[in-house]
Structure formats: C-alpha cells, structure tokens
C-alpha cells in the first residue's frame, strides 16, 4: 500500500489497537510444523448444479487458448474440450463469449481498509498493528469486516479469490487470510478452506519510523535478522531445525519480547509453510531483503508493488520469486520514481512469475484491465504477450504465490470450478463478467438480480434508490 494511502488510512489511528491474541491452535500447529494451514473454515459452497459451458473462447490460465466446452460436476472441473455427452448437466451457451479461471487478487485490504472511509478512529481502519516493528503474532483475519462492499464489487469484476494482507507500516506485519469473494456475515464463512496463510513483511519507506526503531533501512535489516534468529532458536527448540536440515544462526543480539507466537510464525515461514509477501519497491531493497530471507532458508517469497523489479528481472526469475505489480503506478512516492508500464512484461520475459494486484479497492474490479494495460505496454516494447499468456498474471501465477496452484487458477480437470464467463475479450474495457462461478456455484450473474450480492451497508440508503 502506498504511503499516501497508508497515511490516509492510518493517520486517524491515534488509538493504539490492542493486538489480537493468536489462537492457541495457531501456536500449537506452528510448533508442529503445520503453522501455514490453520484455523477452520465455515465456508460452504452456494447451492449449485452441474453445468456445461459450451462454445466459449477459453483462456485456461496455463497458457492455452482454445474454443471448447467445460464440464463442471460437484464444484470441480471434470472435462475441458469438445464434450459430447454432458449427461444431465445444465447447458449454458457461451458461444462468442470468453471463459477464464476466476481471477485471484493476492493483495487486498478488504474489510480492514473499510468502505466507506470516515474519520471515526478504529472503526474503519485496522490495516496494521503498529505498536512494534514485529507483530508476527497478529493475524489480519481478526479484523476483517466481511460486509465491506468491496467484496461484492470484486466478485462482479470476476475475482473469486482474494488475499487480505496486513499493511506495510511495520517490518513484519502478521498473517494474511485467503477468502472467497462471497460476502458473508463472518470471516470464517468466507475463508478458503485449507488455504495457507501468508506472512506480510515490508521493506523501505513505509516501515521506517521517526524516532522509534527502525529509523533506517539498515535498522530494518538488523531487526529482520534478529527476528529470524529468534525464530530459528524457537524452531531448534521444537525440533523443526532438524526437519529443515539447517543449523540455526546462533543466539540473537537481543530479545525484544512478544512471546512465542511471533517466533512460531516466523518459524513456519522458515520451514516453508508460510509464504512471505514482501512489500518492497526498489531493486536494491528487494535484492537486500531476498538475500537475508534466503540466508534463513525462506525462499517462498512474493514481492509486492516492486516498481523496480524490471531492473533485476532475471535474478527474480532465477530465485523463483513471484512479483505482484500495478501496470502504471509511478511517481506517487520516491520509491516508485522509476516505475515503468513494461514492468510486468519484463518480469514475464525473463521467465519470471508476474502478477497484477489491486491494493486499492477501486482496482479490485479492474484486474483484467490492469493486465490489459501491462500486456499492451509489453507488446509495444516488442514482446509477444498474447491474451492466453497475460491471463496467467491474474490466475495461475497468482495461485502459485498463495500456494493454491493445485486448486485454482487454471481450467483443467480436478481444479475448483472457479470460472468467469466474459461477455467478450476480457482485456477489453467493454467486456464484463456475465457469470462468475465459485466452486461450481453461481456467485454472480449479471442478468439475475438474485445472484448479485448487496452488502448490508448498501441497504435502505435513500442515495442508492434506483441503483440496480
């Protein structure tokens, strides 16, 4: 999240929010080396029936484009291609329309950068717990208001899975949560069953403080190392050090408190169970942080915002690091001074894992357009980026970054039937999602009001009378 937005969102957070206690279960699971896959989900698929989508131009998310059919049974994709016998599945004619996997947005603040924004203190912004540089013991799921109108807005834009991240105001910001974009009453009902959590970290300007540690980039690295060393000790104590086959770095320079939940979370990242999501813009910062993380055995990393990723694209590809960017943000702060629209295309051309993210709610329903702009910039620079390649930036690549590539992000037998039927080429501003399926159920239907969720917030407001 950019600094302007951060200050907008958090300026009013004069009240220090009490850190939410981490569930004992989290801690126990982390200690057992299962820290990445914790709290239970109360999610239930919406009512659904088997269906066959016929005749669409399919971008399968794995790099293929074909005209064909997709058969969906019991919430899973069972067949792709020319389907002769779909049995009793409901037939939906998608001729002339386009079909993509449900879009995946790996960087959102839904429910915590709460709409509408107001200035009534902690009622509207819980993006970051800012009382310490390491709040790895916090989990953003404890703050999410699931009736944020942003969720249904994203769903109407074709997004079926979203990661809600803590903010970037501190070094180690806590655990993320991954949700289906079906607005429900509690967060648990939205939670993607079995999805790993992620761990947010932030380099550079946003997490540098005035007066309190860390006040500089070098201080940030010292703080990061200290936290990771404490986690290694914790891991060794739990026997996890042996499991990872690595020797810990030795005693940390000094403990900073926080209890074992912080160590457990970082230990899970070291053990490879908790993918790290690193907010970082500058190429030098990215390289520095990746080197430290790698030194501690953390290699499942996605760099977010990454305005200068294009300067080190081959290195990022070599390190197997995903990079989530905007197509055209530059200049709004010094760390983004060198942002160029070819960023994603250059990452892709180097063989890297390029991803488009929204960060701000307005872009949550425009991921297809964000991708269209970034791909077009690459084509103008002479790179070959057809639609079937670009769609990966908001489907399979994004799934990989959040550890769900075996369940979502591609249209293939066995995958969740998270699908979007677009009225036309999804990279045209004139195309819209006609139908959005989540696990084979219609979660959004542009032509059926009963399948277009409206948040509690929007009810009964005279200003919204007449808005469909």
């Amino acid at each position, binding site marked *: 999240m*950019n*600094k*302007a*937005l951060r200050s907008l969102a958090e300026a009013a957070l004069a009240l220090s929010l009490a850190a939410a206690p981490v569930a004992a279960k989290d801690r126990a699971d982390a200690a057992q080396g299962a820290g990445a896959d914790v709290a239970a989900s109360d999610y239930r698929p919406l009512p659904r029936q088997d269906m066959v989508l016929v005749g669409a131009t399919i971008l399968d998310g794995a790099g293929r484009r074909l005209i064909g059919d997709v058969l969906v049974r019991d919430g899973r994709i069972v067949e792709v291609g020319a389907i002769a016998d779909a049995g009793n599945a409901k037939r939906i004619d998608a001729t002339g329309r386009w079909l993509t996997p449900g879009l995946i947005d790996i960087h959102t603040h839904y429910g915590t950068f709460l*709409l*509408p*924004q*107001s200035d009534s203190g902690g009622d509207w912004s819980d993006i970051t717990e800012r009382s310490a540089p390491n709040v790895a013991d916090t989990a953003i799921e404890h703050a999410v208001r699931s009736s944020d*109108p*942003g969720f249904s*807005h994203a769903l109407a834009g074709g997004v079926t899975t979203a990661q809600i991240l803590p903010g970037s105001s501190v070094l180690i910001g806590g655990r993320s949560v991954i949700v289906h974009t079906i607005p429900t009453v509690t967060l648990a009902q939205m939670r993607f069953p079995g999805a790993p959590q992620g761990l947010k970290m932030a380099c550079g*300007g946003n997490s540098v403080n005035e007066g309190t540690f860390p006040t500089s980039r070098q201080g940030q690295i010292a703080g990061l190392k200290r936290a990771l060393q404490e986690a290694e000790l914790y891991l060794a104590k739990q026997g996890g050090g042996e499991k990872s086959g690595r020797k810990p770095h030795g005693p940390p320079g000094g403990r900073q408190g926080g209890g074992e939940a912080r160590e457990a979370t970082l230990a899970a990242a070291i053990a490879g169970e908790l993918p790290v999501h690193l907010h970082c813009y500058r190429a030098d910062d990215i390289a520095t942080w990746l080197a430290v993380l790698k030194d501690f055995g953390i290699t499942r990393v996605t760099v977010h915002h990454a305005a200068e990723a*294009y*300067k080190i*694209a*081959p290195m990022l590809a070599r390190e197997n690091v995903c990079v989530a960017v905007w197509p*055209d*943000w*530059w*200049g*709004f*702060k*010094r760390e*983004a*001074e*060198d*942002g*160029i*629209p*070819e960023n994603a295309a*250059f990452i892709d*051309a*180097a063989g890297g894992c390029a991803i488009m993210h929204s960060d*701000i*709610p*307005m872009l949550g*329903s*425009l991921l297809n*357009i964000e991708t*269209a*702009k970034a*791909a*077009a*910039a690459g*084509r*103008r*620079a*002479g790179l070959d980026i*057809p639609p079937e390649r670009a769609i990966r930036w908001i489907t399979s690549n994004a799934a990989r970054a959040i550890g769900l590539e075996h369940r979502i992000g591609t249209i293939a037998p066995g995958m969740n039937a998270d699908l979007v039927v677009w009225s036309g*080429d999804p*990279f*045209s*501003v*004139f195309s*819209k999602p006609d139908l959005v399926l989540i696990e084979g159920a219609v979660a959004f239907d542009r032509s059926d009001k009963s399948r277009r969720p409206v948040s509690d917030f*929007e009810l009964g*407001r005279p*200003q*919204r009378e007449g*808005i469909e």
Partner: protein
Amino acid sequence: MRALVALALLVCAVPAFSQTLAITNARLLDGDRDETGVTIVVQGGTIASVARGGAVPQGAQVIDAGGRPVTAPLSAAATQIGVIGMGGATNTEDSAATSTVLGGAFDISRALDPDALTIQEARAQGVGKAMVFPTQRSGAFGGAGALVDLDPAGPLLKERQAALFATSSGSTSGGSRAAAWSLIRNALAEARRPADPANRPRDDLLGPAEIEALRPVLARRIPLAVAANRTADIREAIALSRDFGIRVVVIGGAEAWRLAEQLAQAQVSVVLDPLDELPFSYESVGTRRDNAALLAKAGVSMAFMVSGQTIYLSYNVGAGLREGAGIAAANGLSRGDALRAITSGMARVWTGKASAGIAAGAPADLVIWDGDPLEPSSAPARVILGGKPVSPVTRQTLLRDRYHPRRSDDPMPPAYR
C-alpha cells in the same frame, strides 16, 4: 483480442522538416464524427484542411495514420500536473497552501513547473490541455486554478486564475458544511459590494486580494468550482449559482445523477470521476458507474477527472482519463460523449465555450492512437501539438530501453548503456 500494431508509423521521409504536414488515412473521431480515409493538412501550427481522401500538398511531410484513430489531444478537467513533481517530496509539491491568509487569492499558476515529469508524462500520454487546481487545505476557498497548454514550444500557462476553487466539505471550514457554505456565501456577498476601500465595514472577513479573486466569479467571467459529492451538497451548489447569478462547476459529483435535471436546468456543469463505483466515503454512498450516462441523458455539461486515489490524477492523467471514458462508455455513455468528456468537454465546462476541434483554422493539436482511444490498452502512436510531432522520448521510455530484456546479456552495467 484485436491485434495491436507495433509502434512504428510509416513516416515517408521528406526533407528533414517542412512547414507542411499531412496526416493521411486517418480515422477521424471527434465525438460527433467517425470518418475514415481522412487527410488532415497542417500548415505552421494550424489545421489547413480536413477532407476525406484529401490531396497531399507538394513537399509536405506525410504521416500515414494507417487507418488508425485520430482525435484531438486529451484535456484533463482537473489535475495537478506541473505543481506536483514527485509524491512525498515536499520540495516538488506546490499543490496547496495551508495559509488561511490567502484563501481565494492563492494562485496556483505561480508554482507551475514545465520541467515537472508529470508534465512530460502527460504530454506523452496525449494530454494537450488541463485545468491545474489547488488542493484544499484550509478555509472554504482553495484558490485559483490555471489552464495550461502542454505544447512544448509555447508557455505552459495559458490562463491564470481561470476558475476559483471552493469546497462544501466542513473539514477545512471549522468542522461543519454549514460553516463552509456560510463562508462561501459571505465572501461572495462581501465581494459584490462596491469597491471602495474607505467605505468597507470594519468587520468584513475578506481582504482586498481575496475580493479581487472573487470579482471575476461574480462577473461570470470564470466559474466557481465547488467540490461536492453528496446530493444535499450538490443541491446547495445549484442554489448558490442561482442566488448569486454565478457559473458553478461541481467537482466530484458522485451523486450528481440524482439531480441531473436540476443541474441541466441551472446550467451547472459537473467534473466527475467515472471510475467511482464504491462508496469511498459517506458523501458518496450513492455513487454508480453510469453516473455519466445519466447526466448526459439529461443534457448536463460535463468533463472527466480520474483520481484513482490520486495515483491517476497527476501521474497517469492521460491513461487514467481514457480508462475512465472507456468505463463510462461501457456503462451506458455513448462513445461520442465519452470522447468529448476527455477532449472538448474541459473547455466547455471551464470557459463555457467549445474548443475549436479538428477543423480548418483550428490549432493543429492531434493525437494518432495505436488502437481504440477508449481502450486502456491503447496508447498514442504520435502526439502532435502546435503542428509539430512531440518527441515520444520520456524518462520512462529511457528506463524501458535501458533495462529491455534484449539487453540482459550486456556486459556493461545499465549506467553505461
């Protein structure tokens, strides 16, 4: 997906530079017309002729548009290019003053910097003209906005104090909208009295500089721009225009669709953000993506600004405007109206007069696009301002070329490339 043609346009080389330029095989789009095979002949800084299949004068430099769209340059109805250089760098940031002394006398034009990268980038994105407005940090009046012209051959400033900006938000006026409206109404009332300093009541709130800034508003020479999104605030803005007989432009207008008829009747224009869809604040609960379509249907004069939480407003103003227009067109606004809202709409809103458009005798400001200008994936193939092609080289294209994948095996570090 429609194939995007690579950037190179066929430029049939003629002697290095000639005063006459001919753009052939253009698809002319101006909101009203959509004509193919058009030849536009430019002499000096002026359009000499526009004709389907028109002849190319002897010795003219020819740019073959290859059937691609040609429009007037984009016009940003509200932006801060030229007064914002780099976000967060306060020494490049002049968009606002917190001084309560200046009020309406704050004149943004004095801070304009033609070398700002926001200007360079806007020009490359096909922006030709813009209203640069002040940010509101104190009081009810933010100060005067300036009309700018991005032709690099001429002065950036086209007209200083081209509109006066105010806000209906109470946050800078003591915490209540009622205070903001009282301050605005009082200021207009004080400025309306005869200009005899000796006879001014001692309890007047305005100083001479602010009175001077308000006079052109009362004379209807420039409009008063009032930031308002909430229905009740827009209604107050309409009342203000009626009570003082002044031209009012509503900035924001998230709920303007609810007062479309009244706005049209009062001839109050709206500068709106077509990317608004979410209730970002309690002032925009009734926001909707077909706001522009509903206003157009009622005949409200409008132009677009696209904020993108301020990212698009100044850093990506051209691309942002086109994306906004594309979204509006995808949500019920006609393509012509959408194009007008990001080209000629600005002049109509701020000056009350239509801009000259693409016609013989008009300034030769044109953009050739590499695709549908309403598609965000398109970009300018050629920007022509004041009759001359603008250099496509920007800081961003230099970074692009320096770090292009084809150079990844270059043994020399980027600083040597």
